[in-house]
């Protein structure tokens, strides 16, 4: 039978100052809490990979079924916008990593600064995306709302091009949604940082948000070539 008398100090004998005020009491110590939180975020990111993966998979299937139609859409994808967004996100991941490092080292000012920069770059991404969506709207390449779809320049591809654009908007749309959530996370973390919540002994929320941010960046790294770069140099038949 299990020995229920343990060598661990009993809960009621805790000196309240002996552990961080951030320790949740179902954990034994901060290390266990930190490990659990990071593992939890990794598992969550795994689910996100499957979520986006489903869309990537479906897109790839249709792309291989209708290569000509999909190739005809590539002229409406602006790789310049895409590249700018890629650059912006990569830099934001850098500033995020630096923020996590600052938190780890207890550098409060640096932490706040890098969080601000990350948010600025995140916002820049969304603004550039907004310009892009606007262009698609003006070009009548938005199949989602009644009158903003027109593929009369290549009507033989219209049906499949509509599928392609739907996927484009869903994939970049869900990604942008995740960015918005990320910005919300950053704001929360920033406010916590301003109240000097974080220290080398406790920076779990920064670490975990950093993982999330990097993931959202990586999804874009896959989206960019898939949507913007493949087939861009092929001429339409």
């Amino acid at each position, binding site marked *: 039978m299990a020995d229920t008398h343990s060598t661990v100090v009993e809960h009621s004998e805790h000196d309240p100052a002996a552990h961080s005020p951030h320790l949740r009491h179902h954990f034994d110590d901060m290390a266990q809490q930190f490990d659990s939180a990071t593992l939890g975020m990794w598992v969550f990111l795994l689910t996100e990979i499957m979520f986006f993966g489903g869309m990537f998979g479906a897109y790839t299937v249709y792309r291989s079924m209708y290569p000509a139609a999909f190739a005809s859409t590539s002229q409406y994808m602006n790789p310049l916008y895409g590249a700018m967004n890629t650059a912006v996100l990569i830099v934001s991941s850098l500033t995020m990593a630096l923020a996590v490092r600052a938190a780890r080292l207890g550098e409060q000012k640096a932490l706040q600064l890098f969080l601000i920069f990350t948010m600025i770059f995140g916002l820049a991404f969304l603004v550039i995306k907004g310009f892009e969506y606007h262009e698609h709207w003006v070009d009548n390449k938005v199949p989602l709302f009644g009158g903003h779809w027109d593929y009369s320049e290549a009507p033989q591809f219209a049906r499949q091009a509509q599928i392609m654009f739907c996927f484009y908007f869903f994939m970049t749309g869900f990604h942008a949604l995740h960015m918005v959530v990320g910005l919300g996370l950053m704001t929360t973390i920033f406010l916590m940082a301003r109240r000097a919540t974080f220290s080398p002994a406790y920076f779990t929320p920064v670490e975990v948000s950093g993982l999330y941010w990097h993931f959202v960046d990586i999804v874009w790294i896959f989206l960019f070539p898939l949507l913007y770069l493949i087939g861009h140099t092929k001429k339409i*038949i």
Partner: protein
Amino acid sequence: MQVPLFPEAASAIATSVDYLYFYLTAVSVVMTALIFAAVFFFALKYRRRSEDEIPEPIHGSLKLEIAWSVLPFLVMLTFFWWGAQIFFANASPPPGAMDIYAVGKQWMWKIQYPEGQREINELHVPINRPVKITLASEDVIHSFFIPAFRIKHDVVPGRYDIMWFTATKPGRYHLFCAEYCGTEHSGMVGWVTVMTENDYENWLAGNGTEGTMAQQGEKLFGQLGCATCHQLDQQGRGPILRGLYGSRVQLQSGQTVLADDAYIRESILNPNARLVAGYHTDVMPTFQGQITEEQLLQLIVYVKSLAIQGAPPVSEQSSAAPGGAATTTENPNTGGKK
């Protein structure tokens, strides 16, 4: 009152399926009986007789684990093998099988015979002759199921599906739709009548018709303006259709494809999908939405009938008045390939 417990077997494949089913059942009964017996027997023999009993632990046995993993798996492989054989047989209609065309739409089956007979929810077939059914859907996914023949195949919109059988026993058998398709899914049922060869010939003759499917197709060919570009024997704006069916076609993309039913259907509904080499895109209009699945099948049967070089068009072969498709119209834009 009749309470059937086992369906009639009326096709060549049905008996094979039944034997495999009996084999599966036998193995299952044996396995189930063994487990039930073991559990029952152990429960009885080792029932607790005193509250102080503490049995000796038996942690396991690698040999046993391997045995009862590998042996059942080997048995399952026999299921797989036999099942695959039947599945292969079902997938390959013999050449020269009789063609029948079935279109499913909410909530009925529309059957067409090449000789022109049409039925709704009824299928007549001769005994002992392979029959190949080409399945199409006008709307949602249906499934063509004949329990007595032990076959079924989903009917998926947007493409053709094939099933085939050889009926072996005269009689009248259920036809069911087996893929849920909306309100009257359970009303999408009918009957398959298997007849002796003589009876079948009589039935064919006695059932009025507006012409064979090929003739109906030819009429459509004229009505829809196909003849404008697709001449029978000389080059028009579109590829020559005589001899096309069953040949290999070189595409713009460099691939070669077989000109089968699906290819012709796609060319009518989405002409630029697989464009023939040497032809422009966006010249042939699409007929998506303007033509039913039944009409598509008629056109295909017509194109199929153009297989023989030098033979006169179908309408000249019968005593019916020419459909008018054989004449070409003057078109100032008619020219050769680009």
